């Protein structure tokens, strides 16, 4: 658990980058909500960092992970909603962004219940392995979707 602070920092960068990636494709109103969510996430993150610094060093910051996942899912749903306005059906299924958002959506929606527990070992004991297996399946699923997207998408349909 010595390197867990690295994961905590990674989460901050990861969520901000992913939100930024989808942010550009949001509509006018959705952009305002998007900014609000990103700010809220950073606020929660730094609140935890400042007031629970010991936790930051010793365990996964579950609040930030869960809130980050949920905010990201909301942003992805808003982006999919924006995509509905696009002309043809083919332009959606051949669009790389659609597949990336689908993969991330599946991963974050399924994994956040597992990451919401900071100390799996204490709480789950032997079942920790089972939880890891679930995570493995989800990661496999996400990457399958991403690979399908990379193979299936066409450049001319990208945004």
């Amino acid at each position: 658990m010595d390197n867990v602070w690295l994961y905590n920092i990674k989460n901050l960068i990861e969520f901000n980058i992913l939100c930024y990636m989808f942010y550009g494709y949001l509509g006018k109103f959705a952009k305002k909500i998007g900014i609000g969510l990103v700010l809220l996430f950073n606020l929660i993150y730094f609140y935890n960092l400042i007031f629970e610094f010991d936790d930051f060093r010793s365990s996964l910051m579950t609040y930030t992970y869960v809130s980050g996942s949920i905010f990201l899912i909301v942003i992805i749903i808003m982006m999919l909603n924006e995509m509905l306005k696009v002309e043809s059906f083919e332009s959606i299924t051949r669009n790389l962004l659609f597949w990336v958002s689908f993969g991330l959506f599946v991963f974050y929606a399924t994994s956040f219940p597992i990451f919401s527990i900071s100390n799996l070992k204490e709480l789950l004991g032997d079942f920790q392995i089972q939880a890891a297996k679930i995570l493995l399946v989800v990661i496999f699923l996400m990457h399958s979707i991403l690979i399908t997207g990379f193979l299936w998408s066409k450049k001319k349909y990208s945004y």
Partner: protein
Amino acid sequence: MEQKEIFLLIFSASLTSLVFSISLVTLFVLYHRRKDYYRKEITKTRIEIAEQTLRNISWEIHDNVGQILSTLNLYSYKVHEESPTELKPKVGELQDLIQTAITEVRGLSKALNTDYIKNVGLIKSTELELSRFKRLKFMDTQLNVEGEPFIIPDDKEIILLRIIQEFFSNSMKYARATKMDVDFIFKGKELRIYVKDNGVGFESAEVVGTGIINMRNRAKLIGAFLNLESEINKGTRLEIIYRKKNTDNVT
């Protein structure tokens, strides 16, 4: 809580989220597909209505105006016989004019009539249209066919012709073109159509009229690629690429 219970809780939460996320995206895709289908149907219906209107106009021209002109032609022969000698050349001119009018009206009726186009095919119809322009001294025309033509279903042929006709009418209305080149290039399963005029041209990015939108919608309906390039004072070039579909043989 027992360890097992906690694990079950996590497992069920994950599973629910997984099902939720996958079903949401599936619904999204299905909705989009249905929307696309409806849009295509609407465009199809709109084009069918337009074709029906054109066909009615064509019948009307052929049966009504055409008949009146034919009767007029018959009368003119009678007038020619009975008129005094000094008036005969004038009546002769009148007869010529009536003949020209009959030819024009027939040509127009043919260009508008879908059934006629279905019978003679895309290339012949384009040729007739171009010869009409030439005859009316609208512009100089040239038609070029390369490669071995393959069969294109009637409904798609009509759509291709309507796109070309739209381009013709735009060239005459706005571009004041004096020259029109049409190339049909058949290569394997692909048909490339290039239509080029020497009109005033336009800024490709700026002008998006109903004509251009119609052309694009029609091309999209039959799955053809359409590209319109234009340069000010140099003319406009339309490129259509139609790829023969496997289902084309069935229809």
